[in-house]
């Protein structure tokens, strides 16, 4: 089911070509697979392995290190409530409590309708705006327990479905490197001459 779509396959090949060593594309391609399906299946990992020329086990080995990758389906919305120091000092515990109560699941769980997965999260680099949370990695700052309840109501009613894409989509703009402007991958084994703008000294060494 989760073969890359034709469009994503083209994109995946373009991403691989940006790196001198294809394995560097494993994380970007896992993100692409998660964007397409909302989670990462065995089949997706097999396809990524083929695209970058490693074994599926290596793809899984890398992927499982990182918390953002999900190897089983999760909710359409991932609600991450920060619980690190600044947020904890400013009332993160109450936010989590309100969310658990409202959703009827504990942190780590997904609602029965598959809409929302609730997670405790670590510092989100918004500590001055504590307590804060992210829905599919979109921020909400200085949140109150009532604010959490309202947010959950809005997610349930679909009021935020335009603003917040389904789980898996991060940036909605992709980098595009035009081929007539690209320098190329810069192979560590091949491109060993000093770059054009670095003058070569008399002895042949460069600065």
């Amino acid at each position, binding site marked *: 089911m989760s073969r890359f779509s034709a469009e994503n396959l083209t994109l995946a090949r373009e991403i691989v070509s940006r790196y001198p060593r294809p394995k*560097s594309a494993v994380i970007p391609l896992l993100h692409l697979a998660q964007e397409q399906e909302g989670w990462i299946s065995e089949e997706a990992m097999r396809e990524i392995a083929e695209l970058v020329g490693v074994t599926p086990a290596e793809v899984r080995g890398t992927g499982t290190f*990182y918390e953002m990758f999900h190897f089983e389906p999760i909710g359409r919305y991932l609600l991450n409530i920060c619980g690190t*120091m600044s947020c904890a000092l400013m009332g993160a515990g109450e936010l989590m409590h309100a969310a658990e109560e409202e959703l009827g699941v504990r942190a780590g769980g997904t609602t029965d309708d598959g809409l929302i997965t609730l997670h405790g999260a670590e510092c989100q680099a918004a500590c001055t*705006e504590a307590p804060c949370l992210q829905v599919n990695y979109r921020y909400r700052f200085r949140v109150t327990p009532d604010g959490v309840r309202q947010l959950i109501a809005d997610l349930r009613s679909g009021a935020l479905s335009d603003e917040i894409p389904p789980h898996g989509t991060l940036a909605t703009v992709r*980098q595009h490197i035009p081929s*007539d402007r690209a320098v190329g991958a*810069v192979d560590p084994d091949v491109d060993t001459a000093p770059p054009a703008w670095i003058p070569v000294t008399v002895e042949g060494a460069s600065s």
Partner: protein
Amino acid sequence: MTVETYPWAPGFVAGDRPRIVTSRFEHEDSHTLERYMATGGYEGLRAALAKPAAEVHEQVRGSTLLGRGGAGFPAGVKWGLTPEGVYPRYLVVNGDESEPGTYKDRLLMERDPHQLIEGCLIACYAAGLSRCFLYIRGEMALAQERVATALNEAYAAGLVGRDILGSGFGVDIVLHWGAGAYVVGEETALIESLEGNRGMPRLKPPFFPAAIGLYGKPTIVNNVETLSNLPFIAANGAEAYTAIGTETSPGTRMVAVSGHVRRPGVYEIVNGTTTFRDLLYGEEFCGGIRDGNELKAFVPGGGSAPWFLPDQLDLPFEGRQVGAAGSMLGSGAIMVMDSTTDIPAAALTLTRFYAHESCGKCVPCREGGTWLMRVLERVVAGEGTTDDLDLLLEVGQSICPGDMPHASSEALGLEATPFPYKMTTICFVGPSAYVPVHSALTLFRSEFEERVAPSRSRTRIPVVAVGGGQ
């Protein structure tokens, strides 16, 4: 005195101070190429390209620009550590900002992505780096989007890629993002991650990334804020930069102050002279402790830093003096605790973070961090004994043997022990799990003692890390 905030830059607070990296934040469209060009954008790059690369490198060396990622190493010196004649060399931009308390790189990427791109180009030109990978933290969707848009604009305008501005200098900037792992912010782990591996730090020395880095080649890893200073330096010269701040800490610095203050925020401050008292109490900064409460303690440099007391308020934000006083400036993040704070519980939020983020490569960090967390959890829950307090210090000693840095306290009759500590681990994640425990226990022991029961006459109960790694 003016204090200004902008809805499009959440948390940022402007005042009557010199601004280098946040100079465009008052414009809602500061992230666009159009605004960037209208406000001196890419002038630094033009000035740099008009000179030989070595001269630009000298200029940055002369500016004494210090790295903003945590270690405070001078950027110009780092660039000079690449082995002579070995190419290609790579630039890896560290946009993985995730140290507890730290909030500045994300703002710089969201609000002024072109400034960062220009900084990357100047660094590549000056240090002979042929390809740049810009690694943004996975959880920062908006920063990724802004940088992607800015890169697309810059490529279209001939500012990135082949033959930039007709100078013969050319470099690609490749946007890459992570997937959630704090330790990946450590530079060698960042490189591992960029190679498509699990983000575990490499043992260094002997080989630092400047010698053997990405794909085994010389690699410069610099922080987002560090690089964002380069356009100013290239356009205005090293002297304009060193005219701000002090000799050992020139320029400005972005500092996030969070926790129990009246106006938490991100401030661009004059480096080296602004004191913690200015920051916490000054009307142009945080305006005092919330609800008129007393200050109890503060973390001066991100979650990894030993804690300070009100005794240390008059220290300036300057690395050497803060080091001598028993802590570090780290990533420019202050977390403030007022008199209502439950100290053992506050320490637990940090210890849990580092225990959770251990990559598992070193035993003292993997096992010790989890032990510390579990024992502290027990103490906070009121189920600990006096023995547990000794156990915390004992486990800590296996991660950081010998004297631990800590602040002085007049009330406790404590002299400061200067930074740094010794460690048995590859990177700072292991020690960072212990630092909050040690600070809290050293400076607020009575709060722990109130919490625990006298040691029952039991032999020490071993703490078993159930379930292994996180």
